[in-house]
Structure formats: C-alpha cells, structure tokens
C-alpha cells in the first residue's frame, strides 16, 4: 500500500515555477530519496507536503494512507502521521530537551506486529539512540547552547518517539559528525522496521546509498526516478553540464 502519494503537485511563487507537476509515491518501510541541485525545489516540496505557511497555495493532491490531506493544517497532518525533520532545526529558549521530546511521546502513533503492540522508547532511550547522554542533555534547553548537530540529533530523537507513518527528513546528515551519521542509519533502519515511510532529501551519496528509490528533481520537475545509483548516475552524466551553466557544481561528493 502506498503510504504517501503526491499527485501533480505544482507550486508557483510570483513568476517562478517552483514545482511543476510533481508525482511521487512512498511505500511502507521504503526510503525514497529526492536529490537535485540547489534551487531544484527539494525543500519547497517538503514544505508543501508538511503544509507550512506560504506553501499551501499549490495545485495537485497529497494523500497519506489513501486519505486526501491536501487541505490539512500542519497539526492535522502530524496527527494523521506525517512529520518532518528540518535541515536547520529551530531553537527554543527555555524549553528543555525533556519537554521537547515529551511532545512527541504524547502524540506518538501506535505500531503493532503479530497483533502485539510494539513498545515505545522512553525519552532517555531515544536520546541514547542518537548518541546523546540523557544525564547530560535532558535538562538542557533546545537553544543556542546546543550546537547545530546536537539540535539535529535531538530532533531525530523526537521523530523516533513520535513514530509517524511518514517522515520527511531534510538533509538529516548536515552538521552531524561522522560517528553520529552511523546513528542516523540505525534510526532510519528502525523506521524501516516499523514500516515508516521516509522521504529523504539529501546531497550526500552516503545517505543516498540507504535509499530504496531515488528521484532527481531539477527546476521543479522530477526528471528521473529509479534506483539510487540510476538517479545519481543520471545526475552525473546528464545534468551536470546543464547545471554548471547555471549553478556552481555541488553534486554529492
């Protein structure tokens, strides 16, 4: 069953066509990567899917587990089982890591296997999963005293606790050190085991390697969907000369 289906989604801002008839789907436990150059529309696509302010005036439909969520608010989408990890997670003055993670716990989705409920992680376990010590971090604020990488890991822990049906991860490795990237792989693997669908926006070949499928987005168009290597090869072989004329080269190393 398709968990997420995006049908002919187009977005225009002023005279600029940001997304142009984007069609995409995501199955249970599937990792679908979206790659493409800067300005291709990757982040805009994630904002449209999450229903963020300024991205609701689009054409096309969005379905989550067969239900049309196109007109849903951000909260309604979250309650339906869709969430997102931001490329640059927000800072929250005076909100502790424990309080922040508590929100996800409260709104977590239930998962069962063979008729038995799969137990939820505790807040401390979720922090350990992202290689942060609960003793050291639970009482700290999710503010500028945490580095970008630490906030990113706290955000991943919050998604882990929420256990959505579908998660959009926008550049999950940015600002994360090499050791912690292994933890991200483990978390994505755990999502897959639960059957959570993952829409992965990335520039990194290493992250791309864990995807089941990949779509190449350019100037708001999906121009290729296939295996991660097919999409990456197409990008390298067909797109770079075109992109080089307009953008500095920034393909995944």
């Amino acid at each position: 069953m398709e968990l997420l289906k995006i049908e002919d989604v187009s977005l225009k801002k002023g005279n600029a066509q940001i997304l142009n008839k984007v069609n995409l789907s995501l199955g249970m436990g599937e990792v679908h990567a979206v790659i493409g150059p800067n300005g291709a529309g990757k982040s805009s696509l994630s904002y449209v899917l999450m229903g963020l302010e300024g991205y609701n005036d689009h054409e096309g439909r969005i379905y989550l587990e067969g239900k049309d969520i196109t007109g849903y608010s951000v909260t309604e989408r979250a309650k339906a089982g869709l969430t997102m990890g931001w490329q640059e997670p927000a800072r929250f003055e005076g909100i502790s890591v424990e309080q922040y993670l508590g929100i996800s716990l409260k709104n977590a989705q239930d998962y069962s296997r063979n008729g038995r409920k799969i137990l939820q992680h505790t807040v401390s376990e979720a922090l350990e999963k992202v290689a942060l010590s609960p003793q050291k971090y639970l009482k700290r604020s999710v503010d500028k005293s945490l580095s970008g990488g630490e906030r990113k890991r706290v955000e991943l822990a919050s998604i882990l606790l929420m256990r959505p049906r579908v998660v959009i991860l926008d550049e999950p490795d940015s600002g994360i050190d090499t050791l912690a990237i292994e933890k991200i792989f483990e978390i994505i693997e755990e999502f897959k085991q639960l059957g959570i669908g993952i829409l992965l926006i990335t520039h990194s070949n290493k992250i791309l390697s864990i995807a089941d499928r990949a779509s190449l987005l350019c100037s708001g168009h999906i121009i290729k969907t296939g295996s991660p290597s097919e999409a990456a090869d197409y990008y390298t072989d067909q797109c770079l000369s075109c992109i080089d004329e307009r953008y500095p080269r920034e393909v995944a190393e």
Partner: protein
Amino acid sequence: MNHFEQMAKVYADAGGQPEVFKDSDVAHLVISGNKVLGAHLVPGLRVDPRETKDGVAVKIVVEEGVKIARPIHMCFGVVPEEGLQKIDMHVEVLDGASASVSAHCVFPNAVKVTHIMDAEIILGKGAEYKYNETHFHGMNGGVKVVPKTKIIMGEYSYFYTEFNLPRGRAGYVDIDYDAELDAHATVEMITKVNGYGDDLIKIREAGTLKGENSRGVLKSRIALKGNAVGDVYNEMIALGAKSRGHVDCTEIIMENARAKAVPVVDVRHPEAQVTHEAAIGGVNRTQLETLMARGLDEEEATEMIVQGLLQG
C-alpha cells in the same frame, strides 16, 4: 483567617513556599501593606523594618564575610482590591558576604493597587547578592508597580537580579534598575514579563562598567498580547579597560500588541566591548511549525514557546 495566613495563602498561590516561614534555618520577611507581619533572622543577617504611613522602610545588612546558605524569603503584598504600598529598602552586603533572596510580590485581588519600591543595594568587595523576584498581579490589571533600584558594586562583587511576571495581568509596570560596577565586578539583570489586555510595561535596565574587567549582561524577555504595550530601554556604558557587556532583548507580540526596544551601547574605552541583540516580532514561524509538526495545535505551540521564553 488572620492577616498573616491570608498572605501565606496568596504567597503559596503565587508559587512561594509558605512552609519556609516555619523553618528556623530560613530567614524571612513578610510585609502586607504597611504592616510587618513576620520577620525571622539567621546569624549574620540584620533586618530593621520600620512601618511608615504608606509602607515599610527596611534596612538589611549581611555582615562581613557571612555567607547565608539558604535563600532569604521575602513576601510583599496588598491583599485588598485597593491600596498603596511604598517600600524603601536599603541593602548592604558587606565585604566577602553573600546572600540570595527569593521575593514574591502578590496583589491577587488588585483593582487599584500601587506598589512602589525604592531600593539601594550596596555590595562590598567580593560580596555576592542574588535577588529573584516573582510577581503575581491577579487578573484585573489594576496594579501599578514601580520598582526603582540603584546598585553600587564594589570590586569583585557579583549581583544577579531576575524579575518574573509570568502569569496574570501585568497592569502598569515601570522598572528602573541601574548598576555601577567597580573593577572585576559582574552584574546580570534579567526581566521576564507577560502582558496582555491594555497592560503597559516599561523597562529600563542600565549598567555602567566603571572598573577594569567589569562585566554586565542585561536581558529582557517580554511576551505581549491583546493591546499590551512594551517599551524596553537597555543601556550599557563601558568605561573601564577590558570591560565587557552584552544587551539582549527579545519581545514576542501577538494580536494588537506593540513593542519597542532601544538598546544603548556606549563604549568609552578602546579596550572595552559591548554587544547587543534584539528580536521583536510575532512567534517564530519555524518554532511554531516544528511543534505543530509534532502534533501540538497552534495555540498550544504558541503557549509553549511563550512560557519557555518567560520561565526558562
């Protein structure tokens, strides 16, 4: 219920711990209107309260070298709907002494209450004084609070003050704190106020870094809703060599509220440095949408962000 019990109740309602009034190891002072309802001292602490026509004049001395381990609890308030309370407070923390105060100012039924605080705080060499003040003004908005404090800080002294008004109506608040620092002294002033209705919140925090290596941080956190107005004026003057200061103001406005911040940075020594940051506007959209993407509705997310700002 007698007058003291009434005050203890409103003190507890405002987040205070009335059991400390029975603890012989904890110093306290309870003032209602112009009456001193209770006072308890610990060794090394002298408190001399004198009732005046409209309030109380109180002199507090922490003797040289004395370090008071547990916070001194103070409770000021006016329980009736109307009243005037003028507190004249003179505090001296002598050389090498240290004390901290947990103060609650409670006006739970105020319709027309004025609370005026004129304070002078003198810190000796190496003295430390922390003053944490929490206000509860009730829901009528009928309170006028005018605290004015002059702080004179000796070498290597440390002063921390936090003014909190996280819940209820602010009414009219006009804060004026002014600190003068000698060499190696450090001051931190933090104000956190929540206003709505037609509340008017005026804050002036000033620090003059006179001595070399003196340090100062002035921080304001204001959340305004309805037709509330906030006016923050933070001034840091750096005169001493290698003195360092920072001014930091964040104001969140909602509905028809208005906010203004004027950070004044006045540096008069080439080796001194003062920085400032100010952010005024609605609730940050990315913060809001992040919490909504975890399942909170917009109102819950806004409340969490505002309370984090005010209570964190």
